[in-house]
């Protein structure tokens, strides 16, 4: 037990402790206790990190006297739930996980419920009781639903937490269903991360098949990248944003297994610096580059013909009139049987006839070519259609579009096509574009040509882990008890509902684990929409920009203070025990929603404890539990982090079965015909491209990427992270040539602007960014009390222009294209004249 310094001094002066040091002067008396202390009463807990970083690290949390004193990396079990040997997964953590304590013990935490007393956004609140808060919420929600319809209340959880109950959609989703409200996000991350996933539902899943739940996503377990001969990190600054996954990649390279690490990025990030090949592409032109690589593969016959014939729609003939697949009914209209009429058709090179793709007397389906169907009509194969669409993308033409040297375009194609298996890992940055869907459509097409889908060490992966597995297959039932369902209103569509009443009016909202007022694109529009609402509830642990807009603020627990389960970005089940008592008057989202539900007369749906919810969702003891969690018990889950019952490393589509209409990889996408996107030919970004007339006024691309020192807007104000990150102050990365042209010096205040809004920060001149491109790390706060940017916020510049093609995938139907953004930058020194 440490002796308090004052006690020590008092006892010293009283002469009762002989320190043995004969020194004069008070300062030498300020010593640590001379008595040897006993070991403290230290307890150790294991939990998972559920904040929104896609790391899902396991934490070993040390607690002394009821306070968390250290967070370190925890170990993982070496087997699956059902006892099979799994992989050796290293304990992992990063600077953010270690700093999680500072989130919990922040002096700025929201401690009590509050009611707004000033103008909305004025920051004037008065403390109220939980009972009063819950009553107010219940009353207002009932009023608004009665007057404007049930979906007029928008429940908006988001990805601030990825855990089962407290995360997205979690208990918020169940509450929304029970009261018939509209629900913001169902784990589909439609605020900028859904473009890539939508493309998986163009080629690999039928979005209309109920089994795919409106849209599916799958990816390789990240440890599988160690099995690749060549790895492309495409718009993925993994060494900064997903640091624990870097371990396996660098180890594979050190062993000589990974021959080349290729990084595609307009910025020279730590990841690019570690690469063997770095391609500084003009951002937004990635599908042109991929088309160029496909063009090379086709010209040099570097594609896997067997794979294409067996697993893809490559040999299927296209109806020249409709451009849909040719069906047997088109050739034999007299057929009566529906199944026979629907059959896809191929050309048999052997007997030179057109026949169904599954005909028993098919000898050799033709991959390429154009064939006579009848006297007047000729049809090409889907593969031939791809060849034609890709024809213009020669290395020289691609070089013009992408600003990557033609030689490098060829080299990238060689690296991908000549090494098998070759893996592609995409960052979500690639999805922050209007054409993000098309980019991933092109990547999946290229991977298909190489026969890399469903192959260990191959594939195209954006995200992988328990969230994309069927481990939570019972979650849908838990979210909709008694089949009570919410309406779906994506974050991208909410402004129109609030401002214009389309598709229905939204008059109230409850934000939880969601900093929508700051993190959503087109911030000025968002603030206007929020300002128009009758009633806003915000649950948070920080006084976020969204909390500032609230009518009622509810104090949330951080994850040390509540029980939950995590299985997000890896394939382990991580029990998250309650480690300390909730601080101040904070409550879990479960308790908060239960309180309001009780006052609304639907409390019967919120009587379960966290352990009971976990048991229900994982279907413990149910013989019909999904294979991935079969055999799990609460005891086992609490005892350690076991791997799901999937092969390790997990490889999606290993069985080459695809839940598409045809059962094959559909790189020719019939459903995209209305959008002229049935193949992956390049289309320009909606805004950030030189051919846009706006480019004359706003010639700089504006990125707002992720920094290692924050996770979106979490961790942004923590002392340990701010002091090594420019005191938390944002800055604009700008190339010295662009800066010189504008008379901007390093450290100068600059104004970044376009027609939607503006912001101010200091400039950081760096060669690490391609000329013509600028970057300001997102996630810093723009609140009344804390400003990490001098004025405004990066989202003042971004937009909400939605890509209609994505609407064919219900779950991934819209996407905020943050990076598809043009700005101009000017020096903003005081006293300067502005025209």
């Amino acid at each position, binding site marked *: 037990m*440490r002796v308090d310094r004052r006690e020590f001094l008092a006892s010293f002066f009283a002469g009762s402790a002989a320190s043995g*040091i004969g020194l004069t002067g008070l*300062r*030498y008396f*300020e*010593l*640590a*206790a001379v008595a*040897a*202390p006993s070991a*403290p009463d*230290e307890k150790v807990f294991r939990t998972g990190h559920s904040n929104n970083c896609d790391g899902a690290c396991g934490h070993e949390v040390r607690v002394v006297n009821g306070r968390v*004193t*250290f*967070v*370190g*990396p925890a170990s993982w079990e070496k087997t699956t739930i059902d006892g099979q040997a799994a992989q050796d997964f290293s*304990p992992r*953590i*990063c*600077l953010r996980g*270690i*700093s999680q*304590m*500072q989130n919990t*013990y922040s002096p700025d935490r929201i401690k009590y419920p509050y009611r707004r007393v000033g103008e909305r956004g004025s920051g004037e609140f008065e403390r109220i009781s939980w009972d009063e808060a819950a009553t107010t919420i219940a009353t207002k929600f009932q009023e608004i639903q009665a007057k404007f319809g049930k979906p007029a209340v928008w429940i908006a959880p988001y990805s601030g937490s990825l855990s089962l109950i407290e995360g997205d959609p979690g208990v918020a989703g169940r509450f929304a269903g029970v009261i018939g409200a509209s629900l913001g996000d169902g784990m589909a991350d439609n605020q900028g991360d859904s473009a890539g996933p939508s493309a998986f539902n163009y080629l690999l899943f039928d979005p209309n098949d109920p089994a795919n739940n409106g849209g599916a996503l799958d990816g390789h377990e990240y440890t599988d990248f160690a099995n690749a001969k060549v790895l492309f990190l495409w718009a993925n600054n993994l060494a900064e944003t997903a*640091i624990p996954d*870097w371990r396996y990649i*660098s*180890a594979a*390279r*050190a062993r000589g297994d990974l021959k080349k690490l290729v990084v595609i990025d307009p910025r*020279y*990030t*730590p*990841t690019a*610096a*570690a*690469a*063997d*090949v*770095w391609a*500084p592409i003009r951002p937004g032109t990635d599908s042109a580059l991929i088309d160029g690589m496909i063009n090379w593969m086709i010209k040099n016959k570097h594609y896997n013909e067997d794979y294409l014939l067996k697993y893809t729609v490559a040999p299927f003939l296209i109806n020249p009139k409709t451009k849909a697949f040719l069906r047997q009914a088109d050739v034999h209209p007299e057929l009566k049987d529906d199944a026979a009429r629907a059959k896809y058709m191929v050309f048999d090179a052997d007997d030179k006839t057109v026949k169904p793709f599954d005909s028993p007397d098919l000898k050799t389906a033709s991959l390429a070519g154009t064939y006579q169907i009848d006297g007047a009509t000729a049809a090409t194969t889907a593969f031939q259609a791809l060849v034609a669409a890709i024809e213009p993308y020669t290395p020289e033409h691609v070089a013009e579009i992408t600003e990557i*040297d033609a030689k*490098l375009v060829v080299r990238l194609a060689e690296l991908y096509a000549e090494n098998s298996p070759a893996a592609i890992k995409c960052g979500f940055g690639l999805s922050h574009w209007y054409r993000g869907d098309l980019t991933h459509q092109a990547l999946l097409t290229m991977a298909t040509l190489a026969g890399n889908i469903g192959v260990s060490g191959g594939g195209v992966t954006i995200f992988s882990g328990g969230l994309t597995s069927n481990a939570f297959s019972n979650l849908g039932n838990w979210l909709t008890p008694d089949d009570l369902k919410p309406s779906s209103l994506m974050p991208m569509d909410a402004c129109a509902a609030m401002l214009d009443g389309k598709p229905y009016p939204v008059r109230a909202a409850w934000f939880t684990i969601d900093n929508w007022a700051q993190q959503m694109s087109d911030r000025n529009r968002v603030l206007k929409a929020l300002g128009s609402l009758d009633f806003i509830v915000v649950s948070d642990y920080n006084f976020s920009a969204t909390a500032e807009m609230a009518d009622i603020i509810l104090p949330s627990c951080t994850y040390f203070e509540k029980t939950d389960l995590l299985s997000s970005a890896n394939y382990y089940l991580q029990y998250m025990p309650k480690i300390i008592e909730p601080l101040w008057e904070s409550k879990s989202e479960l308790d908060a929603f239960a309180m309001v539900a009780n006052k609304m007369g639907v409390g019967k749906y919120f009587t379960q404890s966290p352990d009971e919810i976990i048991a229900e969702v994982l279907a413990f003891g149910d013989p019909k539990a999904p294979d991935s969690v079969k055999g799990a018990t609460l005891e086992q889950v609490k005892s350690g982090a076991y791997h799901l019952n999937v092969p390790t490393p997990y490889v999606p589509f290993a069985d080459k079965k695809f839940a598409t209409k045809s059962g094959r990889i559909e790189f020719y996408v019939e459903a995209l015909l209305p959008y002229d996107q049935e193949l992956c030919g390049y289309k320009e970004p909606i805004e950030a491209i030189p051919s846009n007339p706006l480019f004359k006024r706003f010639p700089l691309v504006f990125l707002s990427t992720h920094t*290692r*020192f924050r996770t979106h807007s979490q961790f942004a104000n*923590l*002392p*340990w*992270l701010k*002091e*090594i990150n*420019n005191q938390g102050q944002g800055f604009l990365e700008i190339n010295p040539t662009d800066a010189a042209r504008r008379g901007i010096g390093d450290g100068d205040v600059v104004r970044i602007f376009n027609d939607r809004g503006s912001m101010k920060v200091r400039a*950081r001149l*760096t*060669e*690490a960014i*391609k*000329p013509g491109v600028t970057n300001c790390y997102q996630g810093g706060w723009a609140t009344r009390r804390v400003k990490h940017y001098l004025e405004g916020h990066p989202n003042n510049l971004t937009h909400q222009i939605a890509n209609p093609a994505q609407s064919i995938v219900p779950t991934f139907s819209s996407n905020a294209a943050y990076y598809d953004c043009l700005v101009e930058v000017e020096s903003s020194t005081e006293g300067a004249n502005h025209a």
Partner: protein
Amino acid sequence: MLKRWGMVIDQNKCVGCWTCAVACKSINNEPLGVHWNRVLTTRPDEDAPGKEPVAATAIDVPHGEFPDLELAYQPLACQHCTDAPCRRVCPVNATFRRDDGMVLIDFERCIGCRTCFAACPYGVRTFNWQRGQYGSDFEVGYGRDYRWNDRLVFTPERPVGVAEKCTGCVERIDNGQEPMCVAVCPAGARVFGDLGDPDSEISFTIKQQGGRQLLADLGTGPGVYYLPVSRPNKEHI
């Protein structure tokens, strides 16, 4: 058999994430503004003969001109030198070296003269000019005193007026654990072990991959080695 502790840091794996720096901060309850361990932004082979000295820039800013750029990272803490200059100059033998190679400060004996600051060529010592401000209002990390041969070599709140620096996590290594920076590195870039054992992983790694010491010509004999950045498969197109 007495060990001779050392560490090797692989600059091929280090990506400058600062996890080691923050973990060190946390386990040792370092005040704000104090880092026993920090990560420098540099470039590969920065100390190779003939190369220009690295100009100070902000973190993550590379060297060169777009697109011909270089970037590397160098975590830096006490090098636990065999012939530590700080130990030589300490007038009261507060700084001392154990036989196993760890260079430590006795917080009860340090008189705050700061001669060790002048002596250390690596700049890895910090000084408590005033009562520290902390990130939290209670002590975090190891949380208790640790004595070796009755010398106070770790205490959660170091007194005002003493020097402090990386302790090599003596309270952990004496307990069979690795230093915290080694345990947390997400990239697996650090190896800790017995330099005196030629068959240990650390000895093997240093030999095989050409581990080098910082400012080796000064003869301080650091116990920390760095594996230089090596990109045999790098292409310039």
